Protein backbone atom coordinates (compact mmCIF):
# COMPACT_ATOMS: atom_id res chain seq x y z
CA UNK A 1 0.00 0.00 0.00
CA UNK A 2 1.23 3.35 -0.78
CA UNK A 3 0.62 6.65 0.66
CA UNK A 4 -0.92 9.10 -1.67
CA UNK A 5 0.56 12.49 -1.49
CA UNK A 6 -2.12 15.05 -1.65
CA UNK A 7 0.03 17.68 -3.17
CA UNK A 8 1.15 15.66 -6.10
CA UNK A 9 -0.68 15.97 -9.32
CA UNK A 10 1.90 14.95 -11.81
CA UNK A 11 1.76 11.29 -12.47
CA UNK A 12 3.47 8.99 -14.78
CA UNK A 13 2.54 5.61 -15.88
CA UNK A 14 4.84 2.81 -15.21
CA UNK A 15 4.53 -0.68 -16.47
CA UNK A 16 3.21 -2.94 -13.91
CA UNK A 17 4.24 -6.47 -14.20
CA UNK A 18 0.73 -7.14 -14.98
CA UNK A 19 0.76 -4.98 -17.93
CA UNK A 20 3.66 -5.93 -19.87
CA UNK A 21 5.69 -8.54 -19.28
CA UNK A 22 8.10 -10.04 -21.36
CA UNK A 23 10.02 -7.07 -22.28
CA UNK A 24 12.90 -5.88 -20.47
CA UNK A 25 12.10 -2.29 -20.20
CA UNK A 26 15.18 -0.44 -19.77
CA UNK A 27 15.14 1.19 -16.69
CA UNK A 28 15.26 4.80 -16.75
CA UNK A 29 11.60 4.97 -16.19
CA UNK A 30 11.25 8.19 -14.47
CA UNK A 31 10.50 7.49 -11.18
CA UNK A 32 11.10 5.68 -8.19
CA UNK A 33 14.17 3.82 -7.57
CA UNK A 34 13.15 0.36 -8.16
CA UNK A 35 13.41 0.32 -11.86
CA UNK A 36 16.01 2.91 -12.28
CA UNK A 37 19.48 2.17 -13.24
CA UNK A 38 22.43 4.32 -13.19
CA UNK A 39 25.76 4.86 -14.67
CA UNK A 40 28.26 2.16 -14.38
CA UNK A 41 30.67 2.68 -11.71
CA UNK A 42 34.23 3.30 -11.46
CA UNK A 43 37.19 3.11 -9.28
CA UNK A 44 38.64 5.83 -7.26
CA UNK A 45 41.22 7.70 -9.15
CA UNK A 46 41.47 8.42 -12.78
CA UNK A 47 43.25 7.01 -15.75
CA UNK A 48 42.89 3.55 -14.52
CA UNK A 49 44.77 4.02 -11.32
CA UNK A 50 43.99 1.14 -9.10
CA UNK A 51 42.66 1.83 -5.67
CA UNK A 52 45.46 2.89 -3.45
CA UNK A 53 44.37 0.82 -0.56
CA UNK A 54 46.37 -2.30 -0.08
CA UNK A 55 43.23 -4.06 0.99
CA UNK A 56 41.63 -3.50 -2.36
CA UNK A 57 40.08 -6.67 -3.69
CA UNK A 58 41.82 -8.56 -6.42
CA UNK A 59 40.68 -7.72 -9.87
CA UNK A 60 39.71 -10.33 -12.37
CA UNK A 61 41.82 -10.31 -15.47
CA UNK A 62 40.35 -11.35 -18.78
CA UNK A 63 41.74 -14.63 -20.01
CA UNK A 64 44.39 -14.43 -22.68
CA UNK A 65 41.99 -15.98 -25.17
CA UNK A 66 39.22 -13.53 -24.33
CA UNK A 67 37.56 -11.72 -27.18
CA UNK A 68 38.83 -8.26 -27.93
CA UNK A 69 36.51 -5.59 -26.66
CA UNK A 70 36.66 -2.05 -27.93
CA UNK A 71 36.47 -0.22 -24.65
CA UNK A 72 37.62 3.40 -24.74
CA UNK A 73 41.03 3.85 -23.19
CA UNK A 74 39.71 6.29 -20.61
CA UNK A 75 37.09 3.84 -19.39
CA UNK A 76 38.13 1.16 -16.97
CA UNK A 77 35.99 -1.81 -16.18
CA UNK A 78 36.92 -3.47 -12.97
CA UNK A 79 35.50 -6.80 -12.00
CA UNK A 80 36.49 -8.09 -8.64
CA UNK A 81 37.97 -11.55 -8.76
CA UNK A 82 35.32 -14.01 -7.73
CA UNK A 83 36.22 -17.44 -9.00
CA UNK A 84 34.12 -20.06 -7.28
CA UNK A 85 36.03 -23.19 -8.18
CA UNK A 86 32.89 -24.62 -9.72
CA UNK A 87 33.49 -25.07 -13.42
CA UNK A 88 29.97 -24.30 -14.49
CA UNK A 89 29.52 -21.28 -12.28
CA UNK A 90 32.88 -19.93 -13.30
CA UNK A 91 31.85 -20.31 -16.93
CA UNK A 92 28.74 -18.27 -16.20
CA UNK A 93 30.76 -15.64 -14.39
CA UNK A 94 33.17 -15.39 -17.27
CA UNK A 95 30.37 -15.04 -19.80
CA UNK A 96 28.75 -12.49 -17.52
CA UNK A 97 32.00 -10.59 -17.65
CA UNK A 98 32.03 -10.76 -21.43
CA UNK A 99 28.40 -9.75 -21.49
CA UNK A 100 29.21 -6.68 -19.50
CA UNK A 101 32.18 -5.80 -21.66
CA UNK A 102 30.03 -6.28 -24.74
CA UNK A 103 27.32 -4.08 -23.35
CA UNK A 104 29.78 -1.33 -22.49
CA UNK A 105 31.32 -1.69 -25.93
CA UNK A 106 27.87 -1.18 -27.43
CA UNK A 107 27.35 1.89 -25.28
CA UNK A 108 30.71 3.21 -26.31
CA UNK A 109 30.03 2.71 -29.99
CA UNK A 110 26.33 3.44 -29.93
CA UNK A 111 25.70 0.28 -31.88
CA UNK A 112 22.89 -1.96 -30.69
CA UNK A 113 23.98 -4.55 -33.20
CA UNK A 114 27.48 -4.63 -31.81
CA UNK A 115 28.61 -8.21 -32.27
CA UNK A 116 30.14 -8.57 -28.84
CA UNK A 117 26.99 -7.19 -27.29
CA UNK A 118 24.67 -9.53 -29.16
CA UNK A 119 26.81 -12.54 -28.58
CA UNK A 120 26.17 -12.56 -24.85
CA UNK A 121 22.79 -10.86 -24.70
CA UNK A 122 19.47 -11.94 -26.13
CA UNK A 123 15.74 -11.88 -25.60
CA UNK A 124 14.34 -9.58 -22.98
CA UNK A 125 17.77 -8.59 -21.83
CA UNK A 126 18.74 -7.61 -25.33
CA UNK A 127 15.51 -5.70 -25.83
CA UNK A 128 16.00 -3.76 -22.64
CA UNK A 129 19.72 -3.12 -22.84
CA UNK A 130 19.41 -2.12 -26.47
CA UNK A 131 17.22 0.70 -25.39
CA UNK A 132 19.87 1.81 -23.00
CA UNK A 133 22.43 1.75 -25.79
CA UNK A 134 20.05 3.81 -27.91
CA UNK A 135 19.68 6.27 -25.11
CA UNK A 136 23.39 6.83 -24.86
CA UNK A 137 23.55 7.23 -28.60
CA UNK A 138 20.68 9.67 -28.72
CA UNK A 139 22.42 11.77 -26.13
CA UNK A 140 25.64 11.61 -28.06
CA UNK A 141 27.37 10.40 -24.96
CA UNK A 142 29.55 7.58 -23.87
CA UNK A 143 30.94 6.47 -20.58
CA UNK A 144 34.27 7.34 -19.04
CA UNK A 145 35.93 6.81 -15.71
CA UNK A 146 35.83 3.53 -13.87
CA UNK A 147 32.98 1.14 -13.42
CA UNK A 148 33.23 -1.70 -10.95
CA UNK A 149 31.39 -4.97 -10.53
CA UNK A 150 31.49 -6.85 -7.26
CA UNK A 151 29.53 -9.28 -5.13
CA UNK A 152 28.80 -11.41 -8.15
CA UNK A 153 26.96 -14.63 -7.48
CA UNK A 154 25.57 -17.46 -9.57
CA UNK A 155 22.91 -20.00 -8.70
CA UNK A 156 22.24 -22.87 -11.04
CA UNK A 157 18.85 -24.31 -11.90
CA UNK A 158 18.28 -27.97 -11.14
CA UNK A 159 18.63 -29.05 -14.73
CA UNK A 160 21.63 -26.83 -15.27
CA UNK A 161 20.08 -24.95 -18.17
CA UNK A 162 19.69 -21.63 -16.40
CA UNK A 163 21.77 -19.58 -14.06
CA UNK A 164 20.47 -16.85 -11.80
CA UNK A 165 23.07 -14.11 -11.76
CA UNK A 166 23.47 -11.26 -9.37
CA UNK A 167 26.03 -8.49 -9.26
CA UNK A 168 26.60 -5.11 -7.74
CA UNK A 169 27.81 -2.23 -9.81
CA UNK A 170 29.58 0.83 -8.48
CA UNK A 171 29.37 3.71 -10.91
CA UNK A 172 30.40 6.41 -8.50
CA UNK A 173 33.62 7.02 -10.41
CA UNK A 174 32.06 6.79 -13.85
CA UNK A 175 30.81 9.71 -15.86
CA UNK A 176 28.95 10.40 -19.05
CA UNK A 177 30.97 12.26 -21.63
CA UNK A 178 29.90 13.83 -24.88
CA UNK A 179 31.36 12.10 -27.88
CA UNK A 180 34.41 14.02 -28.98
CA UNK A 181 34.66 15.97 -25.78
CA UNK A 182 37.65 15.99 -23.51
CA UNK A 183 35.78 16.56 -20.33
CA UNK A 184 33.20 14.47 -18.68
CA UNK A 185 29.97 15.47 -17.07
CA UNK A 186 29.39 15.33 -13.38
CA UNK A 187 28.01 12.34 -11.64
CA UNK A 188 25.50 13.34 -9.04
CA UNK A 189 23.71 10.06 -8.65
CA UNK A 190 24.89 9.57 -5.09
CA UNK A 191 23.78 6.25 -3.74
CA UNK A 192 22.05 5.69 -7.02
CA UNK A 193 25.48 4.85 -8.35
CA UNK A 194 25.25 1.51 -6.65
CA UNK A 195 23.14 -0.82 -8.70
CA UNK A 196 22.00 -4.32 -8.11
CA UNK A 197 21.79 -6.39 -11.28
CA UNK A 198 19.86 -9.60 -11.32
CA UNK A 199 19.25 -11.72 -14.33
CA UNK A 200 19.09 -15.10 -15.92
CA UNK A 201 21.80 -16.59 -18.07
CA UNK A 202 20.60 -19.29 -20.42
CA UNK A 203 22.80 -22.08 -21.60
CA UNK A 204 23.11 -22.17 -25.33
CA UNK A 205 26.03 -24.50 -25.75
CA UNK A 206 28.52 -26.29 -23.59
CA UNK A 207 29.94 -23.78 -21.16
CA UNK A 208 28.43 -20.96 -23.15
CA UNK A 209 25.90 -18.69 -21.57
CA UNK A 210 23.80 -15.78 -22.75
CA UNK A 211 22.03 -13.18 -20.66
CA UNK A 212 18.31 -13.49 -21.37
CA UNK A 213 16.72 -11.50 -18.62
CA UNK A 214 18.02 -8.65 -16.55
CA UNK A 215 16.72 -6.31 -13.92
CA UNK A 216 18.33 -3.53 -12.01
CA UNK A 217 17.70 -1.76 -8.80
CA UNK A 218 19.49 1.43 -8.14
CA UNK A 219 20.62 2.26 -4.66
CA UNK A 220 20.01 -1.31 -3.55
CA UNK A 221 21.12 -1.71 0.02
CA UNK A 222 23.09 -4.83 -0.82
CA UNK A 223 25.31 -2.80 -3.08
CA UNK A 224 25.74 0.60 -1.50
CA UNK A 225 29.25 1.19 -0.29
CA UNK A 226 30.26 3.98 1.99
Amino acid at each position, binding site marked *: MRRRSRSTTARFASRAAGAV*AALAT*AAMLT*GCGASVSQPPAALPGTNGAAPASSSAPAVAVLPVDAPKFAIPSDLHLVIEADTTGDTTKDAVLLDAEYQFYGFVEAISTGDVKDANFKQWTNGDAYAGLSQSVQTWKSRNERLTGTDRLYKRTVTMSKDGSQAAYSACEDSSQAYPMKIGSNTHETNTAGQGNFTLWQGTFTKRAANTWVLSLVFTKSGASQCVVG
Partner: protein
Amino acid sequence: MRGRLNRLLVSLAVLGALTAGPIAVAGPAQAASGCTSSGSGGTVITPPTIGGGNITFNMSVHVLTANVCPGQGASNDSSWTPPACWWQPVFTPDQLKTFAYDYYADASSADLTWAKMTEYYETDGGKGETTPPGYKSTSGPPYSNWNIGADPGGTWWSIVFNQNMVGTPQFSACLLHTMNNDGMPWSWVPNGDAAPANVTGPLVTREELAEYLASIIELPASDFSSSPANGQTVNLPMWVWAANPGGGAGPYTPQTLRACMAIDPGFCAQVTATAVSFTVDPGTPRAADAQVFDPCKISANGTVGAPYTGQAGNPPCGVTYLHSTNQGQVYQPSVTVKWSVAWNGGGGGNWPKIDTMPGDTHQVTVQEIQSVVGQ
Protein backbone atom coordinates in the same frame (compact mmCIF):
# COMPACT_ATOMS: atom_id res chain seq x y z
CA MET B 1 -3.12 -26.09 -7.04
CA ARG B 2 -0.27 -25.87 -9.42
CA GLY B 3 2.16 -23.09 -9.34
CA ARG B 4 1.16 -21.28 -6.26
CA LEU B 5 3.29 -18.28 -6.12
CA ASN B 6 3.62 -18.34 -2.45
CA ARG B 7 5.68 -21.37 -2.80
CA LEU B 8 8.54 -19.21 -3.71
CA LEU B 9 8.06 -16.17 -1.77
CA VAL B 10 7.30 -13.87 0.80
CA SER B 11 7.09 -10.16 0.86
CA LEU B 12 7.06 -7.21 -1.43
CA ALA B 13 5.71 -3.95 -2.09
CA VAL B 14 5.10 -2.62 -5.45
CA LEU B 15 5.34 -4.13 -8.77
CA GLY B 16 6.53 -3.37 -12.16
CA ALA B 17 7.37 -5.01 -15.33
CA LEU B 18 10.51 -6.63 -16.28
CA THR B 19 13.18 -4.14 -16.30
CA ALA B 20 16.47 -4.37 -17.86
CA GLY B 21 19.16 -2.40 -16.37
CA PRO B 22 20.71 -0.05 -18.60
CA ILE B 23 23.64 1.87 -17.68
CA ALA B 24 22.09 5.19 -17.36
CA VAL B 25 23.79 8.42 -17.55
CA ALA B 26 23.82 11.46 -15.45
CA GLY B 27 22.76 12.13 -12.01
CA PRO B 28 19.58 12.23 -10.12
CA ALA B 29 16.66 13.69 -11.89
CA GLN B 30 13.71 15.00 -10.07
CA ALA B 31 10.88 12.96 -11.36
CA ALA B 32 7.59 14.57 -12.03
CA SER B 33 6.24 12.72 -9.10
CA GLY B 34 8.61 14.37 -6.76
CA CYS B 35 10.56 11.22 -6.28
CA THR B 36 14.24 11.53 -6.61
CA SER B 37 15.23 9.41 -9.48
CA SER B 38 18.78 8.33 -9.73
CA GLY B 39 18.37 7.45 -13.32
CA SER B 40 19.20 9.37 -16.34
CA GLY B 41 18.62 13.03 -16.30
CA GLY B 42 15.82 13.54 -18.65
CA THR B 43 15.81 10.45 -20.72
CA VAL B 44 12.79 8.35 -20.29
CA ILE B 45 12.66 5.04 -21.97
CA THR B 46 9.18 4.10 -22.84
CA PRO B 47 8.61 0.47 -22.24
CA PRO B 48 7.77 -1.52 -25.31
CA THR B 49 4.13 -2.24 -25.70
CA ILE B 50 4.44 -5.73 -26.98
CA GLY B 51 1.81 -7.81 -25.41
CA GLY B 52 0.68 -4.93 -23.30
CA GLY B 53 -2.61 -4.65 -21.63
CA ASN B 54 -2.93 -8.15 -20.40
CA ILE B 55 -4.04 -6.85 -17.13
CA THR B 56 -6.35 -3.92 -17.42
CA PHE B 57 -7.09 -1.78 -14.48
CA ASN B 58 -10.28 0.04 -14.05
CA MET B 59 -8.31 2.97 -12.78
CA SER B 60 -5.18 2.49 -14.70
CA VAL B 61 -3.84 5.97 -14.39
CA HIS B 62 -4.47 5.89 -10.76
CA VAL B 63 -3.03 2.53 -10.17
CA LEU B 64 0.00 2.61 -12.30
CA THR B 65 1.40 5.73 -10.91
CA ALA B 66 4.09 6.20 -8.45
CA ASN B 67 3.88 9.48 -6.70
CA VAL B 68 5.46 8.03 -3.66
CA CYS B 69 8.76 6.32 -3.92
CA PRO B 70 9.04 2.93 -2.40
CA GLY B 71 10.29 3.37 1.07
CA GLN B 72 9.19 6.94 1.24
CA GLY B 73 5.80 6.94 2.74
CA ALA B 74 4.99 3.41 1.90
CA SER B 75 3.85 1.53 4.87
CA ASN B 76 5.96 -0.98 6.66
CA ASP B 77 3.49 -3.75 6.54
CA SER B 78 5.24 -7.05 6.25
CA SER B 79 2.38 -9.29 7.21
CA TRP B 80 1.55 -10.35 3.70
CA THR B 81 3.12 -11.12 0.43
CA PRO B 82 2.39 -10.07 -3.10
CA PRO B 83 4.08 -12.19 -5.73
CA ALA B 84 7.55 -11.70 -7.16
CA CYS B 85 6.73 -13.31 -10.48
CA TRP B 86 4.14 -15.33 -12.26
CA TRP B 87 3.17 -16.67 -15.65
CA GLN B 88 0.59 -14.81 -17.63
CA PRO B 89 -0.45 -14.14 -21.21
CA VAL B 90 2.09 -11.92 -22.86
CA PHE B 91 2.09 -12.21 -26.63
CA THR B 92 -0.27 -12.84 -29.44
CA PRO B 93 1.24 -15.13 -32.08
CA ASP B 94 2.14 -12.18 -34.30
CA GLN B 95 3.68 -10.29 -31.42
CA LEU B 96 5.76 -13.21 -30.36
CA LYS B 97 7.16 -13.79 -33.79
CA THR B 98 8.11 -10.15 -34.09
CA PHE B 99 9.70 -10.14 -30.69
CA ALA B 100 11.63 -13.32 -31.27
CA TYR B 101 13.00 -12.14 -34.59
CA ASP B 102 13.90 -8.77 -33.14
CA TYR B 103 15.63 -9.99 -30.05
CA TYR B 104 16.65 -13.59 -30.46
CA ALA B 105 17.32 -14.20 -34.11
CA ASP B 106 20.95 -14.21 -34.98
CA ALA B 107 21.59 -15.45 -38.46
CA SER B 108 25.28 -14.79 -38.17
CA SER B 109 25.98 -17.36 -35.53
CA ALA B 110 25.12 -20.91 -34.73
CA ASP B 111 23.30 -19.81 -31.66
CA LEU B 112 21.70 -22.86 -30.22
CA THR B 113 19.17 -20.79 -28.43
CA TRP B 114 17.79 -19.45 -31.65
CA ALA B 115 18.13 -22.70 -33.51
CA LYS B 116 16.24 -24.53 -30.82
CA MET B 117 13.70 -21.78 -30.61
CA THR B 118 12.82 -21.86 -34.26
CA GLU B 119 12.72 -25.61 -34.16
CA TYR B 120 10.22 -25.38 -31.34
CA TYR B 121 8.05 -22.51 -32.52
CA GLU B 122 8.38 -22.61 -36.29
CA THR B 123 9.02 -26.24 -37.17
CA ASP B 124 10.08 -25.45 -40.70
CA GLY B 125 13.23 -23.76 -39.52
CA GLY B 126 12.74 -20.99 -41.99
CA LYS B 127 10.51 -18.02 -41.90
CA GLY B 128 7.58 -20.10 -40.88
CA GLU B 129 5.30 -18.82 -43.51
CA THR B 130 3.42 -22.01 -44.01
CA THR B 131 1.08 -23.89 -41.80
CA PRO B 132 0.60 -27.57 -42.57
CA PRO B 133 -2.90 -28.74 -43.45
CA GLY B 134 -4.75 -29.92 -40.41
CA TYR B 135 -2.42 -28.08 -38.07
CA LYS B 136 -3.98 -26.93 -34.80
CA SER B 137 -2.52 -24.44 -32.40
CA THR B 138 -2.48 -27.24 -29.90
CA SER B 139 -0.60 -29.61 -32.18
CA GLY B 140 2.77 -28.54 -30.89
CA PRO B 141 5.34 -28.63 -29.81
CA PRO B 142 6.84 -28.26 -32.22
CA TYR B 143 4.61 -25.45 -33.34
CA SER B 144 4.20 -24.02 -36.78
CA ASN B 145 4.87 -20.39 -37.52
CA TRP B 146 4.43 -19.28 -33.92
CA ASN B 147 0.77 -20.34 -34.20
CA ILE B 148 -0.09 -17.37 -36.34
CA GLY B 149 -3.54 -17.90 -37.75
CA ALA B 150 -3.89 -21.30 -36.16
CA ASP B 151 -7.05 -22.46 -34.47
CA PRO B 152 -8.05 -22.52 -31.77
CA GLY B 153 -6.91 -19.01 -30.96
CA GLY B 154 -4.90 -18.34 -27.88
CA THR B 155 -1.93 -16.55 -26.40
CA TRP B 156 1.67 -17.18 -25.55
CA TRP B 157 2.40 -17.00 -21.88
CA SER B 158 5.64 -16.23 -20.16
CA ILE B 159 6.88 -15.39 -16.75
CA VAL B 160 6.62 -11.79 -15.65
CA PHE B 161 8.34 -10.16 -12.77
CA ASN B 162 7.56 -7.79 -10.02
CA GLN B 163 10.63 -5.66 -10.26
CA ASN B 164 10.13 -4.20 -6.88
CA MET B 165 11.17 -7.53 -5.56
CA VAL B 166 14.60 -7.23 -7.11
CA GLY B 167 17.14 -8.09 -4.47
CA THR B 168 14.93 -10.48 -2.55
CA PRO B 169 15.36 -14.25 -2.32
CA GLN B 170 11.93 -14.64 -3.87
CA PHE B 171 13.01 -12.74 -6.91
CA SER B 172 16.17 -14.77 -7.23
CA ALA B 173 14.10 -17.92 -7.12
CA CYS B 174 11.95 -16.59 -9.92
CA LEU B 175 14.99 -16.19 -12.12
CA LEU B 176 15.33 -19.94 -12.27
CA HIS B 177 11.76 -20.47 -13.41
CA THR B 178 11.86 -18.52 -16.62
CA MET B 179 11.45 -21.45 -18.93
CA ASN B 180 8.74 -24.02 -19.43
CA ASN B 181 9.42 -27.70 -19.08
CA ASP B 182 10.69 -27.80 -22.64
CA GLY B 183 13.29 -25.19 -21.87
CA MET B 184 11.47 -22.51 -23.81
CA PRO B 185 10.33 -19.12 -22.57
CA TRP B 186 6.80 -19.13 -23.98
CA SER B 187 3.98 -21.59 -23.56
CA TRP B 188 0.83 -21.78 -25.62
CA VAL B 189 -2.55 -21.50 -23.94
CA PRO B 190 -5.70 -21.72 -26.04
CA ASN B 191 -8.36 -19.19 -25.23
CA GLY B 192 -10.44 -20.43 -22.39
CA ASP B 193 -7.84 -22.71 -20.95
CA ALA B 194 -6.63 -22.01 -17.49
CA ALA B 195 -2.90 -21.94 -17.76
CA PRO B 196 0.06 -23.63 -19.37
CA ALA B 197 0.42 -27.21 -18.33
CA ASN B 198 4.12 -27.33 -18.93
CA VAL B 199 5.48 -24.74 -16.56
CA THR B 200 6.79 -25.10 -13.08
CA GLY B 201 6.86 -21.44 -12.34
CA PRO B 202 4.13 -19.66 -10.53
CA LEU B 203 0.80 -18.86 -12.08
CA VAL B 204 -1.00 -15.86 -10.90
CA THR B 205 -4.19 -16.60 -9.08
CA ARG B 206 -7.07 -14.35 -8.39
CA GLU B 207 -5.95 -13.92 -4.83
CA GLU B 208 -2.44 -13.08 -5.91
CA LEU B 209 -3.81 -10.48 -8.22
CA ALA B 210 -5.55 -9.09 -5.18
CA GLU B 211 -2.28 -9.22 -3.27
CA TYR B 212 -0.73 -7.20 -5.99
CA LEU B 213 -3.53 -4.68 -5.92
CA ALA B 214 -3.19 -4.38 -2.19
CA SER B 215 0.46 -3.66 -2.65
CA ILE B 216 -0.08 -0.78 -5.00
CA ILE B 217 -3.30 0.77 -3.87
CA GLU B 218 -2.71 4.33 -2.91
CA LEU B 219 -4.13 5.50 0.34
CA PRO B 220 -4.68 9.09 1.36
CA ALA B 221 -2.00 10.55 3.52
CA SER B 222 -3.05 11.01 7.09
CA ASP B 223 -3.65 14.61 7.86
CA PHE B 224 -5.98 16.74 9.84
CA SER B 225 -7.23 20.23 10.40
CA SER B 226 -7.15 21.88 13.77
CA SER B 227 -8.28 25.06 15.36
CA PRO B 228 -7.34 27.60 16.19
CA ALA B 229 -4.78 27.72 13.47
CA ASN B 230 -2.07 29.59 15.25
CA GLY B 231 -1.28 28.82 18.79
CA GLN B 232 -3.23 26.89 21.29
CA THR B 233 -4.12 27.86 24.77
CA VAL B 234 -3.55 25.77 27.81
CA ASN B 235 -6.64 23.97 29.02
CA LEU B 236 -8.74 24.95 26.01
CA PRO B 237 -9.40 22.21 23.50
CA MET B 238 -7.83 22.09 20.10
CA TRP B 239 -10.39 20.69 17.72
CA VAL B 240 -9.10 18.10 15.31
CA TRP B 241 -11.01 17.06 12.26
CA ALA B 242 -10.65 15.82 8.72
CA ALA B 243 -13.08 16.94 6.10
CA ASN B 244 -13.30 18.17 2.59
CA PRO B 245 -13.15 21.95 2.76
CA GLY B 246 -15.58 22.07 -0.12
CA GLY B 247 -18.03 19.82 1.61
CA GLY B 248 -19.02 16.33 0.67
CA ALA B 249 -17.05 13.24 1.33
CA GLY B 250 -13.98 13.46 3.49
CA PRO B 251 -10.55 12.06 2.79
CA TYR B 252 -11.06 8.67 4.37
CA THR B 253 -13.75 7.12 2.25
CA PRO B 254 -13.16 3.52 1.22
CA GLN B 255 -10.67 3.13 -1.61
CA THR B 256 -11.17 0.44 -4.18
CA LEU B 257 -9.01 -0.95 -6.88
CA ARG B 258 -9.94 -3.59 -9.38
CA ALA B 259 -7.90 -5.41 -11.96
CA CYS B 260 -8.68 -8.10 -14.45
CA MET B 261 -6.71 -10.55 -16.44
CA ALA B 262 -8.16 -9.48 -19.73
CA ILE B 263 -7.07 -12.44 -21.75
CA ASP B 264 -8.37 -15.87 -21.00
CA PRO B 265 -8.56 -17.14 -18.43
CA GLY B 266 -10.24 -13.93 -17.52
CA PHE B 267 -10.76 -13.14 -13.92
CA CYS B 268 -10.95 -10.06 -11.84
CA ALA B 269 -10.06 -9.15 -8.33
CA GLN B 270 -10.98 -6.12 -6.34
CA VAL B 271 -9.58 -4.81 -3.13
CA THR B 272 -11.22 -2.31 -0.85
CA ALA B 273 -9.35 -0.35 1.74
CA THR B 274 -11.46 0.95 4.57
CA ALA B 275 -10.18 3.39 7.15
CA VAL B 276 -10.84 1.88 10.53
CA SER B 277 -9.22 4.23 12.99
CA PHE B 278 -7.90 7.74 13.26
CA THR B 279 -5.57 8.18 16.17
CA VAL B 280 -4.33 11.51 17.41
CA ASP B 281 -0.88 11.83 18.87
CA PRO B 282 -0.67 15.17 20.68
CA GLY B 283 3.06 15.27 20.12
CA THR B 284 3.95 16.25 23.63
CA PRO B 285 7.05 15.02 25.35
CA ARG B 286 4.98 13.48 28.08
CA ALA B 287 1.54 11.97 27.80
CA ALA B 288 0.50 13.90 30.85
CA ASP B 289 0.97 17.14 28.99
CA ALA B 290 -2.19 16.61 26.99
CA GLN B 291 -5.65 15.15 27.14
CA VAL B 292 -6.83 13.50 23.94
CA PHE B 293 -10.49 13.29 23.05
CA ASP B 294 -10.74 9.95 21.44
CA PRO B 295 -11.74 7.85 19.66
CA CYS B 296 -12.05 10.05 16.65
CA LYS B 297 -14.59 8.09 14.74
CA ILE B 298 -14.40 7.96 10.98
CA SER B 299 -17.82 8.61 9.51
CA ALA B 300 -19.35 6.70 6.67
CA ASN B 301 -18.47 9.46 4.27
CA GLY B 302 -14.86 9.67 5.29
CA THR B 303 -14.86 12.61 7.65
CA VAL B 304 -13.50 12.72 11.17
CA GLY B 305 -14.49 14.89 14.08
CA ALA B 306 -16.19 18.22 13.72
CA PRO B 307 -14.82 21.42 12.24
CA TYR B 308 -14.32 24.14 14.78
CA THR B 309 -16.72 27.00 14.23
CA GLY B 310 -16.51 28.64 17.58
CA GLN B 311 -18.32 26.04 19.58
CA ALA B 312 -17.88 25.81 23.29
CA GLY B 313 -17.22 22.58 25.12
CA ASN B 314 -15.12 19.62 24.27
CA PRO B 315 -14.75 18.40 20.68
CA PRO B 316 -15.60 14.91 19.56
CA CYS B 317 -12.01 14.68 18.42
CA GLY B 318 -9.21 16.83 19.64
CA VAL B 319 -6.58 17.61 22.19
CA THR B 320 -6.40 19.78 25.22
CA TYR B 321 -2.87 20.73 26.10
CA LEU B 322 -2.30 20.90 29.80
CA HIS B 323 1.06 22.61 29.72
CA SER B 324 2.31 25.44 27.62
CA THR B 325 5.23 25.07 25.32
CA ASN B 326 8.42 26.68 26.45
CA GLN B 327 9.94 29.38 24.39
CA GLY B 328 11.27 27.94 21.17
CA GLN B 329 9.45 24.67 21.79
CA VAL B 330 6.60 23.27 19.78
CA TYR B 331 4.37 20.29 20.14
CA GLN B 332 4.03 18.24 17.01
CA PRO B 333 0.65 16.63 16.87
CA SER B 334 0.03 14.06 14.19
CA VAL B 335 -2.51 11.45 13.31
CA THR B 336 -2.24 7.90 12.14
CA VAL B 337 -4.98 6.32 10.10
CA LYS B 338 -5.25 2.57 10.11
CA TRP B 339 -6.72 0.85 7.08
CA SER B 340 -8.16 -2.56 6.61
CA VAL B 341 -7.78 -3.96 3.10
CA ALA B 342 -10.07 -6.76 2.02
CA TRP B 343 -10.65 -8.40 -1.30
CA ASN B 344 -13.76 -9.74 -2.93
CA GLY B 345 -12.75 -13.34 -2.67
CA GLY B 346 -12.63 -16.03 -0.10
CA GLY B 347 -11.40 -15.53 3.40
CA GLY B 348 -8.41 -16.97 5.08
CA GLY B 349 -4.81 -16.15 4.53
CA ASN B 350 -3.66 -12.80 5.61
CA TRP B 351 -6.84 -10.99 4.78
CA PRO B 352 -7.87 -8.43 5.61
CA LYS B 353 -4.55 -6.71 5.52
CA ILE B 354 -3.93 -3.94 7.95
CA ASP B 355 -2.00 -0.92 6.94
CA THR B 356 -1.23 2.25 8.77
CA MET B 357 -0.57 5.61 7.28
CA PRO B 358 1.45 7.81 9.57
CA GLY B 359 0.44 11.39 9.38
CA ASP B 360 2.00 14.68 8.58
CA THR B 361 3.24 16.57 11.55
CA HIS B 362 1.84 19.89 12.53
CA GLN B 363 3.54 22.34 14.79
CA VAL B 364 1.70 23.87 17.67
CA THR B 365 2.73 26.32 20.28
CA VAL B 366 0.69 26.42 23.42
CA GLN B 367 0.37 29.57 25.40
CA GLU B 368 -0.70 30.33 28.89
CA ILE B 369 -4.11 31.87 28.99
CA GLN B 370 -2.78 35.16 30.29
CA SER B 371 -0.77 35.87 27.22
CA VAL B 372 -3.88 35.53 25.11
CA VAL B 373 -5.88 37.80 27.29
CA GLY B 374 -3.18 40.34 27.05
CA GLN B 375 -3.47 40.65 23.32
